[in-house]
Protein backbone atom coordinates (compact mmCIF):
# COMPACT_ATOMS: atom_id res chain seq x y z
CA UNK A 1 0.00 0.00 0.00
CA UNK A 2 1.30 3.47 -0.88
CA UNK A 3 2.06 5.95 1.88
CA UNK A 4 1.39 8.85 -0.46
CA UNK A 5 0.05 11.40 -0.74
CA UNK A 6 1.07 12.00 2.84
CA UNK A 7 -1.25 14.58 4.30
CA UNK A 8 -0.84 16.44 7.55
CA UNK A 9 -3.99 18.25 8.59
CA UNK A 10 -3.90 20.74 11.43
CA UNK A 11 -1.13 18.80 13.19
CA UNK A 12 -0.35 20.21 16.61
CA UNK A 13 2.46 19.39 19.02
CA UNK A 14 2.10 21.30 22.23
CA UNK A 15 4.14 19.91 25.10
CA UNK A 16 3.54 21.76 28.39
CA UNK A 17 1.18 24.20 26.69
CA UNK A 18 3.78 25.73 24.32
CA UNK A 19 2.91 25.19 20.67
CA UNK A 20 5.90 23.84 18.75
CA UNK A 21 3.72 22.74 15.85
CA UNK A 22 0.69 24.97 15.70
CA UNK A 23 -1.61 23.51 13.09
CA UNK A 24 0.62 22.18 10.33
CA UNK A 25 -1.10 21.54 7.00
CA UNK A 26 1.07 19.83 4.44
CA UNK A 27 0.69 17.43 1.53
CA UNK A 28 3.66 15.46 0.24
CA UNK A 29 3.82 13.49 -2.98
CA UNK A 30 5.78 10.25 -3.11
CA UNK A 31 8.64 11.54 -5.23
CA UNK A 32 11.56 13.90 -5.07
CA UNK A 33 13.24 15.79 -2.28
CA UNK A 34 11.32 18.22 -0.13
CA UNK A 35 13.44 20.53 1.99
CA UNK A 36 12.03 22.08 5.14
CA UNK A 37 13.48 25.51 5.84
CA UNK A 38 12.83 27.86 8.70
CA UNK A 39 14.49 29.74 11.51
CA UNK A 40 15.68 28.06 14.69
CA UNK A 41 12.77 26.96 16.85
CA UNK A 42 10.36 26.90 13.90
CA UNK A 43 9.55 23.24 14.60
CA UNK A 44 11.43 21.60 11.72
CA UNK A 45 12.99 18.77 13.71
CA UNK A 46 9.78 18.24 15.69
CA UNK A 47 7.85 17.99 12.43
CA UNK A 48 10.16 15.23 11.19
CA UNK A 49 10.00 13.38 14.50
CA UNK A 50 6.22 13.60 14.52
CA UNK A 51 5.99 12.18 11.00
CA UNK A 52 8.45 9.43 11.98
CA UNK A 53 6.25 8.51 14.93
CA UNK A 54 8.89 9.38 17.53
CA UNK A 55 6.75 12.16 19.00
CA UNK A 56 3.01 11.81 19.34
CA UNK A 57 1.14 14.79 17.93
CA UNK A 58 -1.26 16.36 20.40
CA UNK A 59 -3.80 17.20 17.72
CA UNK A 60 -4.60 16.89 14.03
CA UNK A 61 -4.40 14.04 11.55
CA UNK A 62 -1.58 12.40 9.64
CA UNK A 63 -3.07 10.56 6.67
CA UNK A 64 -0.79 8.01 5.02
CA UNK A 65 -2.32 7.80 1.57
CA UNK A 66 -5.59 6.65 3.07
CA UNK A 67 -3.94 3.68 4.76
CA UNK A 68 -2.36 3.07 8.11
CA UNK A 69 1.12 4.10 9.24
CA UNK A 70 3.74 1.50 8.31
CA UNK A 71 6.72 2.23 10.57
CA UNK A 72 9.03 -0.04 8.57
CA UNK A 73 8.49 2.12 5.47
CA UNK A 74 9.69 5.29 7.17
CA UNK A 75 13.34 5.88 8.10
CA UNK A 76 15.13 8.75 9.74
CA UNK A 77 18.71 10.00 9.95
CA UNK A 78 19.66 12.40 12.71
CA UNK A 79 22.02 15.32 12.92
CA UNK A 80 24.31 13.35 15.24
CA UNK A 81 23.88 9.67 14.40
CA UNK A 82 24.55 7.07 17.06
CA UNK A 83 27.41 4.69 16.44
CA UNK A 84 27.44 1.48 18.43
CA UNK A 85 30.69 0.36 20.04
CA UNK A 86 31.31 -2.01 17.20
CA UNK A 87 32.65 -2.28 13.68
CA UNK A 88 31.47 -0.27 10.69
CA UNK A 89 29.84 -3.33 9.14
CA UNK A 90 27.96 -4.17 12.35
CA UNK A 91 26.70 -0.61 12.53
CA UNK A 92 25.46 -0.49 8.98
CA UNK A 93 23.70 -3.85 9.32
CA UNK A 94 21.91 -2.67 12.45
CA UNK A 95 18.78 -1.51 10.65
CA UNK A 96 18.13 -5.02 9.34
CA UNK A 97 18.02 -6.54 12.83
CA UNK A 98 14.40 -5.60 13.63
CA UNK A 99 13.38 -6.70 10.14
CA UNK A 100 14.26 -10.29 10.94
CA UNK A 101 17.04 -10.63 8.34
CA UNK A 102 19.44 -13.48 9.14
CA UNK A 103 23.02 -12.74 10.20
CA UNK A 104 24.57 -13.97 6.95
CA UNK A 105 22.19 -12.04 4.72
CA UNK A 106 22.70 -8.96 6.90
CA UNK A 107 26.41 -9.14 6.44
CA UNK A 108 26.18 -9.56 2.69
CA UNK A 109 23.70 -6.70 2.31
CA UNK A 110 25.81 -4.52 4.61
CA UNK A 111 28.95 -5.18 2.58
CA UNK A 112 27.18 -4.27 -0.65
CA UNK A 113 25.91 -1.06 0.95
CA UNK A 114 29.40 -0.18 2.20
CA UNK A 115 30.62 -0.49 -1.39
CA UNK A 116 27.87 1.85 -2.47
CA UNK A 117 28.69 4.54 0.07
CA UNK A 118 32.44 4.21 -0.32
CA UNK A 119 33.27 2.74 3.08
CA UNK A 120 34.00 -0.86 2.09
CA UNK A 121 37.67 -0.52 3.00
CA UNK A 122 36.67 0.54 6.53
CA UNK A 123 34.28 -2.39 7.12
CA UNK A 124 36.14 -3.81 10.10
CA UNK A 125 37.23 -0.52 11.63
CA UNK A 126 35.74 0.92 14.79
CA UNK A 127 32.70 2.94 13.69
CA UNK A 128 33.37 5.53 16.39
CA UNK A 129 36.71 6.36 14.86
CA UNK A 130 35.22 7.39 11.52
CA UNK A 131 35.17 11.09 10.69
CA UNK A 132 31.92 13.04 11.06
CA UNK A 133 31.27 12.84 7.32
CA UNK A 134 31.95 9.11 7.21
CA UNK A 135 29.66 8.55 10.19
CA UNK A 136 26.89 10.46 8.46
CA UNK A 137 27.38 8.41 5.28
CA UNK A 138 27.23 5.28 7.41
CA UNK A 139 24.01 6.49 9.04
CA UNK A 140 22.50 7.16 5.62
CA UNK A 141 23.57 3.74 4.36
CA UNK A 142 22.15 2.12 7.49
CA UNK A 143 18.71 3.50 6.79
CA UNK A 144 18.97 3.14 3.01
CA UNK A 145 19.60 -0.58 3.54
CA UNK A 146 16.11 -0.88 5.01
CA UNK A 147 14.64 0.48 1.73
CA UNK A 148 12.28 3.04 3.24
CA UNK A 149 9.57 4.66 1.12
CA UNK A 150 9.98 7.88 3.05
CA UNK A 151 13.35 9.04 4.38
CA UNK A 152 13.51 11.87 6.90
CA UNK A 153 16.84 13.68 7.25
CA UNK A 154 17.30 16.06 10.14
CA UNK A 155 20.10 18.47 9.23
CA UNK A 156 22.35 15.65 8.03
CA UNK A 157 25.25 17.91 7.04
CA UNK A 158 25.12 20.61 9.69
CA UNK A 159 28.57 20.00 11.12
CA UNK A 160 30.43 18.71 8.07
CA UNK A 161 33.13 20.23 5.90
CA UNK A 162 32.35 20.95 2.21
CA UNK A 163 33.81 17.72 0.83
CA UNK A 164 31.87 15.66 3.37
CA UNK A 165 28.72 17.62 2.52
CA UNK A 166 29.25 16.84 -1.14
CA UNK A 167 29.65 13.11 -0.40
CA UNK A 168 26.46 13.07 1.70
CA UNK A 169 24.52 14.97 -0.97
CA UNK A 170 25.64 12.47 -3.59
CA UNK A 171 24.21 9.62 -1.50
CA UNK A 172 20.98 11.54 -0.91
CA UNK A 173 20.57 11.96 -4.68
CA UNK A 174 21.23 8.24 -5.20
CA UNK A 175 18.56 7.35 -2.64
CA UNK A 176 16.14 9.66 -4.35
CA UNK A 177 16.92 8.08 -7.74
CA UNK A 178 15.89 4.71 -6.32
CA UNK A 179 12.42 6.11 -5.70
CA UNK A 180 12.54 7.00 -2.02
CA UNK A 181 10.75 10.19 -1.06
CA UNK A 182 13.05 12.42 0.99
CA UNK A 183 11.98 15.08 3.46
CA UNK A 184 14.93 16.91 4.95
CA UNK A 185 15.71 19.94 7.07
CA UNK A 186 18.72 22.15 6.57
CA UNK A 187 20.01 25.60 7.40
CA UNK A 188 22.16 25.58 4.30
CA UNK A 189 20.28 27.49 1.58
CA UNK A 190 22.87 26.48 -1.01
CA UNK A 191 22.15 22.87 -0.20
CA UNK A 192 18.44 23.51 -0.49
CA UNK A 193 18.91 24.89 -4.00
CA UNK A 194 21.13 21.95 -4.98
CA UNK A 195 18.90 19.18 -3.67
CA UNK A 196 15.32 20.32 -3.31
CA UNK A 197 12.47 19.85 -5.72
CA UNK A 198 10.17 21.80 -3.45
CA UNK A 199 10.53 23.84 -0.28
CA UNK A 200 8.38 23.84 2.83
CA UNK A 201 8.94 27.01 4.81
CA UNK A 202 8.04 26.66 8.46
CA UNK A 203 7.83 29.53 10.94
CA UNK A 204 6.14 29.73 14.29
CA UNK A 205 5.06 26.12 14.09
CA UNK A 206 3.09 26.62 10.85
CA UNK A 207 3.73 26.01 7.17
CA UNK A 208 4.00 29.46 5.59
CA UNK A 209 4.88 28.29 2.10
CA UNK A 210 5.12 25.07 0.16
CA UNK A 211 6.31 25.82 -3.36
CA UNK A 212 8.92 24.78 -5.90
CA UNK A 213 12.51 25.64 -5.05
CA UNK A 214 12.79 28.13 -7.92
CA UNK A 215 9.65 29.95 -6.88
CA UNK A 216 10.64 30.01 -3.23
CA UNK A 217 13.93 31.75 -3.85
CA UNK A 218 12.72 34.04 -6.67
CA UNK A 219 9.25 34.98 -5.42
CA UNK A 220 8.70 34.14 -1.78
CA UNK A 221 5.11 35.02 -1.03
CA UNK A 222 5.19 35.26 2.77
CA UNK A 223 6.85 38.06 4.69
CA UNK A 224 8.59 35.55 6.95
CA UNK A 225 10.13 33.71 4.01
CA UNK A 226 11.32 36.95 2.42
CA UNK A 227 12.94 38.03 5.67
CA UNK A 228 14.46 34.59 6.15
CA UNK A 229 16.00 34.57 2.68
CA UNK A 230 17.20 38.17 2.96
CA UNK A 231 18.72 37.44 6.33
CA UNK A 232 20.60 34.45 4.98
CA UNK A 233 21.35 35.26 1.37
CA UNK A 234 23.74 38.23 1.59
CA UNK A 235 26.36 35.87 2.96
CA UNK A 236 25.55 33.36 0.24
CA UNK A 237 25.55 35.93 -2.60
CA UNK A 238 28.87 37.40 -1.53
CA UNK A 239 30.43 34.46 -3.39
Amino acid at each position, binding site marked *: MSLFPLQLRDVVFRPNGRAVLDGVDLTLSGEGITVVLGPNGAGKSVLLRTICG*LLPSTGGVIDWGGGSFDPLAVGMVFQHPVML*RSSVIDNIA*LGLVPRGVGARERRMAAMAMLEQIGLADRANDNARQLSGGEQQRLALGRVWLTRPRLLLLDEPTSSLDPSAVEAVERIVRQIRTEGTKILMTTHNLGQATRLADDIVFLAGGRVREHVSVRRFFSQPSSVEARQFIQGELPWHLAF
Partner: protein
Amino acid sequence: MGGFSQAFADAFSLLWDFDARVFEIVLLSLQVSGLAVLIGTFIGLPLGACLAVGSFPGKQTAAVIVNGFMGLPSVVVGVVVYLVLSRSGPMGDFGLLYTPSAMVIAQVVLVVPLMAAIARQVVEDTWRQYREELAALRFGWRDTVRVLLHDCRFSLSVAVLAGLGRAMSEVGAVMIVGGNIDRSTRVMTTAIALETSKGDLPLAIALGMVLLALILFLNAGAFALRTSVMRRFE
Protein backbone atom coordinates in the same frame (compact mmCIF):
# COMPACT_ATOMS: atom_id res chain seq x y z
CA MET B 1 54.12 -12.14 67.60
CA GLY B 2 56.12 -15.31 67.13
CA GLY B 3 52.87 -17.27 66.90
CA PHE B 4 51.67 -15.07 64.04
CA SER B 5 54.95 -15.45 62.18
CA GLN B 6 54.78 -19.19 62.58
CA ALA B 7 51.17 -19.21 61.38
CA PHE B 8 52.12 -17.27 58.24
CA ALA B 9 55.11 -19.51 57.64
CA ASP B 10 52.90 -22.59 57.95
CA ALA B 11 50.30 -20.98 55.64
CA PHE B 12 52.94 -20.38 52.96
CA SER B 13 54.17 -23.91 53.41
CA LEU B 14 50.64 -25.25 52.84
CA LEU B 15 50.42 -23.30 49.61
CA TRP B 16 53.95 -24.18 48.52
CA ASP B 17 53.29 -27.89 49.07
CA PHE B 18 50.00 -27.72 47.12
CA ASP B 19 48.16 -29.04 50.16
CA ALA B 20 45.29 -31.18 48.88
CA ARG B 21 42.88 -29.92 51.52
CA VAL B 22 43.48 -26.29 50.53
CA PHE B 23 43.11 -26.86 46.83
CA GLU B 24 40.02 -29.02 47.25
CA ILE B 25 38.36 -26.14 49.09
CA VAL B 26 39.57 -23.57 46.55
CA LEU B 27 38.30 -25.66 43.65
CA LEU B 28 34.85 -26.08 45.20
CA SER B 29 34.67 -22.35 45.93
CA LEU B 30 35.49 -21.54 42.32
CA GLN B 31 32.96 -24.05 41.04
CA VAL B 32 30.15 -22.79 43.29
CA SER B 33 30.80 -19.06 42.85
CA GLY B 34 31.65 -19.37 39.16
CA LEU B 35 28.44 -21.22 38.40
CA ALA B 36 26.41 -18.81 40.55
CA VAL B 37 27.87 -15.81 38.74
CA LEU B 38 27.35 -17.45 35.35
CA ILE B 39 23.67 -18.09 36.13
CA GLY B 40 23.40 -14.66 37.74
CA THR B 41 24.79 -13.05 34.59
CA PHE B 42 22.15 -14.67 32.40
CA ILE B 43 19.40 -13.54 34.79
CA GLY B 44 20.69 -10.28 36.27
CA LEU B 45 21.96 -8.47 33.19
CA PRO B 46 18.85 -8.99 31.01
CA LEU B 47 16.68 -8.21 34.04
CA GLY B 48 18.51 -4.93 34.61
CA ALA B 49 18.32 -4.06 30.91
CA CYS B 50 14.58 -4.80 30.83
CA LEU B 51 14.09 -2.54 33.84
CA ALA B 52 15.99 0.20 32.04
CA VAL B 53 14.26 -0.10 28.67
CA GLY B 54 10.84 -1.48 29.52
CA SER B 55 7.77 0.60 30.06
CA PHE B 56 5.30 -1.10 32.37
CA PRO B 57 3.27 -0.33 35.47
CA GLY B 58 5.33 -0.67 38.64
CA LYS B 59 8.65 -0.09 36.87
CA GLN B 60 9.85 2.40 39.48
CA THR B 61 8.82 0.09 42.32
CA ALA B 62 10.67 -2.79 40.67
CA ALA B 63 13.78 -0.64 40.31
CA VAL B 64 13.61 0.39 43.98
CA ILE B 65 13.21 -3.24 45.05
CA VAL B 66 16.16 -4.39 42.93
CA ASN B 67 18.31 -1.55 44.29
CA GLY B 68 17.23 -2.38 47.83
CA PHE B 69 18.06 -6.06 47.38
CA MET B 70 21.62 -5.20 46.41
CA GLY B 71 22.42 -5.12 50.09
CA LEU B 72 20.48 -8.24 51.07
CA PRO B 73 22.02 -9.71 54.24
CA SER B 74 23.45 -13.04 53.22
CA VAL B 75 22.22 -14.79 56.37
CA VAL B 76 18.65 -13.75 55.52
CA VAL B 77 19.09 -15.21 52.04
CA GLY B 78 20.53 -18.31 53.69
CA VAL B 79 17.50 -18.74 55.93
CA VAL B 80 15.03 -18.19 53.08
CA VAL B 81 16.81 -20.64 50.77
CA TYR B 82 17.09 -23.06 53.69
CA LEU B 83 13.32 -22.91 54.26
CA VAL B 84 12.63 -23.42 50.56
CA LEU B 85 15.02 -26.38 50.25
CA SER B 86 14.40 -28.02 53.63
CA ARG B 87 12.51 -31.30 53.63
CA SER B 88 9.21 -29.62 54.49
CA GLY B 89 9.78 -26.71 52.09
CA PRO B 90 8.37 -26.34 48.56
CA MET B 91 11.56 -27.74 46.98
CA GLY B 92 12.31 -30.23 49.71
CA ASP B 93 11.72 -33.25 47.47
CA PHE B 94 14.80 -32.38 45.39
CA GLY B 95 17.05 -33.10 48.36
CA LEU B 96 19.34 -30.19 47.63
CA LEU B 97 19.97 -28.94 51.15
CA TYR B 98 23.58 -29.29 52.29
CA THR B 99 24.82 -29.80 48.73
CA PRO B 100 26.89 -27.49 46.50
CA SER B 101 23.72 -26.95 44.42
CA ALA B 102 22.03 -25.32 47.42
CA MET B 103 25.05 -23.04 47.79
CA VAL B 104 24.84 -22.08 44.12
CA ILE B 105 21.14 -21.25 44.52
CA ALA B 106 21.82 -19.07 47.56
CA GLN B 107 24.63 -17.24 45.77
CA VAL B 108 22.48 -16.71 42.68
CA VAL B 109 19.85 -15.08 44.90
CA LEU B 110 22.56 -12.84 46.33
CA VAL B 111 24.21 -11.77 43.08
CA VAL B 112 21.20 -11.31 40.80
CA PRO B 113 19.89 -8.08 42.41
CA LEU B 114 23.40 -6.62 42.54
CA MET B 115 24.10 -7.38 38.89
CA ALA B 116 20.62 -6.28 37.81
CA ALA B 117 20.90 -2.94 39.63
CA ILE B 118 24.29 -2.14 38.10
CA ALA B 119 23.11 -3.29 34.66
CA ARG B 120 19.97 -1.16 34.91
CA GLN B 121 22.00 1.98 35.57
CA VAL B 122 24.57 1.30 32.87
CA VAL B 123 22.00 0.36 30.23
CA GLU B 124 19.68 3.25 31.10
CA ASP B 125 22.48 5.80 30.61
CA THR B 126 23.27 4.37 27.18
CA TRP B 127 19.64 4.01 26.22
CA ARG B 128 19.05 7.72 26.78
CA GLN B 129 21.58 8.40 24.02
CA TYR B 130 20.37 5.68 21.64
CA ARG B 131 16.65 5.83 22.23
CA GLU B 132 15.62 7.90 19.20
CA GLU B 133 17.96 6.18 16.77
CA LEU B 134 16.82 2.70 17.78
CA ALA B 135 13.18 3.78 17.76
CA ALA B 136 13.62 5.23 14.26
CA LEU B 137 15.17 1.94 13.13
CA ARG B 138 12.03 0.31 14.59
CA PHE B 139 13.69 -1.73 17.27
CA GLY B 140 11.26 -3.56 19.56
CA TRP B 141 12.15 -3.88 23.23
CA ARG B 142 13.67 -7.35 22.85
CA ASP B 143 16.07 -6.27 20.11
CA THR B 144 16.78 -3.06 22.04
CA VAL B 145 17.75 -5.03 25.15
CA ARG B 146 19.96 -7.32 23.09
CA VAL B 147 21.72 -4.45 21.31
CA LEU B 148 22.20 -2.43 24.49
CA LEU B 149 23.59 -5.40 26.43
CA HIS B 150 26.10 -5.98 23.66
CA ASP B 151 26.95 -2.30 23.38
CA CYS B 152 27.45 -1.92 27.15
CA ARG B 153 29.50 -5.10 27.42
CA PHE B 154 32.61 -3.32 28.71
CA SER B 155 30.80 -1.44 31.43
CA LEU B 156 28.74 -4.50 32.33
CA SER B 157 31.90 -6.41 33.12
CA VAL B 158 31.87 -4.33 36.31
CA ALA B 159 28.52 -5.86 37.20
CA VAL B 160 29.89 -9.36 36.65
CA LEU B 161 32.97 -8.61 38.74
CA ALA B 162 30.84 -7.14 41.51
CA GLY B 163 28.73 -10.30 41.45
CA LEU B 164 31.83 -12.48 41.59
CA GLY B 165 33.23 -10.50 44.51
CA ARG B 166 29.92 -10.77 46.35
CA ALA B 167 29.64 -14.51 45.70
CA MET B 168 33.22 -15.40 46.61
CA SER B 169 33.37 -13.34 49.78
CA GLU B 170 29.96 -14.36 51.08
CA VAL B 171 29.85 -16.66 54.11
CA GLY B 172 26.47 -16.55 55.89
CA ALA B 173 24.21 -18.04 53.22
CA VAL B 174 26.51 -20.86 52.12
CA MET B 175 27.17 -21.76 55.75
CA ILE B 176 23.42 -22.15 56.38
CA VAL B 177 22.42 -24.01 53.20
CA GLY B 178 25.69 -25.87 52.66
CA GLY B 179 26.37 -26.82 56.26
CA ASN B 180 30.16 -26.42 55.86
CA ILE B 181 30.60 -30.18 55.52
CA ASP B 182 34.20 -31.27 55.09
CA ARG B 183 35.02 -32.52 51.57
CA SER B 184 31.48 -31.80 50.47
CA THR B 185 30.30 -28.22 50.97
CA ARG B 186 33.27 -26.50 52.60
CA VAL B 187 34.32 -23.44 50.66
CA MET B 188 37.02 -20.85 51.36
CA THR B 189 34.94 -18.44 53.40
CA THR B 190 33.25 -21.07 55.58
CA ALA B 191 36.55 -22.88 56.04
CA ILE B 192 38.28 -19.66 57.10
CA ALA B 193 35.53 -18.97 59.63
CA LEU B 194 35.68 -22.49 61.01
CA GLU B 195 39.46 -22.87 61.11
CA THR B 196 39.89 -19.48 62.78
CA SER B 197 37.40 -20.42 65.48
CA LYS B 198 39.23 -23.75 65.95
CA GLY B 199 42.54 -21.93 66.19
CA ASP B 200 43.99 -23.53 63.03
CA LEU B 201 45.34 -20.25 61.78
CA PRO B 202 47.73 -21.53 59.07
CA LEU B 203 44.91 -23.06 57.03
CA ALA B 204 42.70 -19.98 57.55
CA ILE B 205 45.52 -17.67 56.49
CA ALA B 206 46.43 -19.81 53.48
CA LEU B 207 42.82 -19.82 52.29
CA GLY B 208 42.54 -16.09 52.97
CA MET B 209 45.60 -15.43 50.84
CA VAL B 210 44.24 -17.57 48.02
CA LEU B 211 40.87 -15.81 48.23
CA LEU B 212 42.47 -12.37 48.07
CA ALA B 213 44.81 -13.37 45.27
CA LEU B 214 41.95 -14.86 43.26
CA ILE B 215 39.79 -11.76 43.57
CA LEU B 216 42.71 -9.49 42.65
CA PHE B 217 43.73 -11.73 39.77
CA LEU B 218 40.21 -11.91 38.33
CA ASN B 219 39.76 -8.15 38.65
CA ALA B 220 43.12 -7.45 37.04
CA GLY B 221 42.38 -9.88 34.22
CA ALA B 222 38.97 -8.35 33.59
CA PHE B 223 40.43 -4.85 33.70
CA ALA B 224 43.15 -5.73 31.19
CA LEU B 225 40.66 -7.39 28.86
CA ARG B 226 38.24 -4.49 29.15
CA THR B 227 40.95 -1.92 28.48
CA SER B 228 42.30 -3.67 25.42
CA VAL B 229 38.87 -4.27 23.87
CA MET B 230 37.68 -0.77 24.75
CA ARG B 231 40.70 0.70 23.01
CA ARG B 232 39.40 -0.88 19.82
CA PHE B 233 35.77 0.16 20.08
CA GLU B 234 35.53 3.34 22.13
